[in-house]
């Protein structure tokens, strides 16, 4: 078997791992993210969000990347979680996102601080990098926890824009909140893959693709316990929306989900908790071994 067959087998396996979720998310994707833009923007300034961004920049530095004077492309940039600190550190940043709501937050900060950020509303799934003039133009291309890079095509496209570094991160495992698991099995009667959780193992697919092609990315694994307190009705609505991507909920199921959260809440607040493992990797596009 040739090396080419080996990579092809892996690509097939990657494709087979992608459920219907990816396909369904295509519809109204900008909407989905626009709704979350305010909430995401909060993490820009809170301690946890800053700490995480600091960890990522530290990891990039460990691998040799320097922000000062670098040209950076940030795919699925959100409200600028990484674009902003990179621009503050002296990089010239092109920030791409499908959601105008996210970009509005980013533009506001960039304007206030007079940062060299160019915001671009665009879907990476269908982006034409030659028309955009992106090919081999950046010192670093970032794809941090974003569905923008979802398969071989969008990963290859990402790499084609870099002349040196690439950064990619995604979930390795998301335990999923206990409520999601219980609701899936008791109300929606679905088996739950809580081994991997939604998006489980996601980072391993692009990692192995790179490995088979001869790249040896620097990898960092991290674990955090994600805790959040929410108004129970809000938590229920969010769960319904989240589950609907894969499992349509009828009115009766929705009612049961609402009742579940109301009962589980204390003082009107629902406390969710899940174990999240993520992986980050950095590699250089001309660094094959």
């Amino acid at each position: 078997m040739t090396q080419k067959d080996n990579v092809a087998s892996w690509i097939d396996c990657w494709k087979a791992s992608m459920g219907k979720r990816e396909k369904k998310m295509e519809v109204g994707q900008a909407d989905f993210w626009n709704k979350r833009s305010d909430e995401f923007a909060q993490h820009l300034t809170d301690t946890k969000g800053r700490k995480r961004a600091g960890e990522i920049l530290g990891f990039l530095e460990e691998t040799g990347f320097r922000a000062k004077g670098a040209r950076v492309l940030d795919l699925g940039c959100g409200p600028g979680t990484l674009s902003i600190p990179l621009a503050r550190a002296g990089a010239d940043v092109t920030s791409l996102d499908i959601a105008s709501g996210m970009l509005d937050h980013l533009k506001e900060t960039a304007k206030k601080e007079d940062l060299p950020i160019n915001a671009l509303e665009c879907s990476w799934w269908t982006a034409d990098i030659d028309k955009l003039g992106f090919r081999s133009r950046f010192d670093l291309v970032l794809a941090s926890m974003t569905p923008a890079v979802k398969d071989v095509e969008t990963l290859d496209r990402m790499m084609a824009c870099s002349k040196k570094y690439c950064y990619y991160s995604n979930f390795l495992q998301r335990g999923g909140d206990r409520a999601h698991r219980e609701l899936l099995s008791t109300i929606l009667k679905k088996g739950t893959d809580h081994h991997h959780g939604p998006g489980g193992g996601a980072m391993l697919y692009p990692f192995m693709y790179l490995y088979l092609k001869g790249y040896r990315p620097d990898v960092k694994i991290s674990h955090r316990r994600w805790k959040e307190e929410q108004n129970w009705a809000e938590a229920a609505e969010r769960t319904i929306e989240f589950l609907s991507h894969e499992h349509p909920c009828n009115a009766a199921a929705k009612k049961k989900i609402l009742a579940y959260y109301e009962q589980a809440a204390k003082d009107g607040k629902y406390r969710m908790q899940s174990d999240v493992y993520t992986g980050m990797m950095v590699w250089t596009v001309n660094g094959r071994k």
Partner: protein
Amino acid sequence: MIRNENAGCWVDCWNAVLPKSGNVPDEVQAARWNERADHFARNIEGERRQKKAAEVLAFLGEAGFSPQGSKILDIGCGPGTLSLPFARAGAEVTSLDISSGMLGRLKEIAENEALRIETLECSWWTADIDALGLRNRFDLVFASSTPAVKDVETFDRMMACSRNYCYYSGFVRRNPDTARSEMFRKILGREEDPHGRMTGPGLLYPFMYLYTMGYRPLIRFGRNARAREHDWPEAAEHTIESQGNRQELSEESREKIREWYKNASPDGKYRSGSEMFSGMMIWNVR
């Protein structure tokens, strides 16, 4: 072997995906495999097994390993699918399995052909490699698609027995049999439990463990769409048994499952059409 902070974090991640109810006692495991020994041994010299053995030997060769004159430990050896070709190629093989039924077949053939195979009836989950004198003793420790190596502990134990190469293979993904999935929806009113169906990137857990420790295994993936045939009662009982771990099935559901398999098998044989992605890897422990 240095387990740095990064590898430690990966170990936690690996542990978290392992089923919590997966610890079946050794004697129950042994009984299960003994029951399957006949089925496994039936095609030991069949074309498919021979092709598989040739593929594995070629892959080992690519990594620089040659069986001639080497010492090999085959963990979860089954009826000797690879132990026999290794021994025929001049290796001295220690073949370990939990099932005396599997080892019985292997011993028979080894004696007939005067092959250098020593069999060891033992559960790898609880094996004491020092008491057995296995530590650091082999040129190749081999674990091919076996539940014997199931977690970090059993994986570390495997590596501790090698002074040179290790080989590990397993599923990466198994796409479920579509007919069977439909049966689950109709009879049990839910989706087939993916736990037992290996939807996740199984092999990648040990791979990433090695990677974070600085190893760079040679790895090869393949897909295998094969139709397998079972007598329908066997297929039905297998499904019932595997579901029994999860929840107690009512007699009515059991009967319905048997009925379904019977109807799906006009000539008495149930054919499942699942597609599998699997990978094999080899690395040097030094």
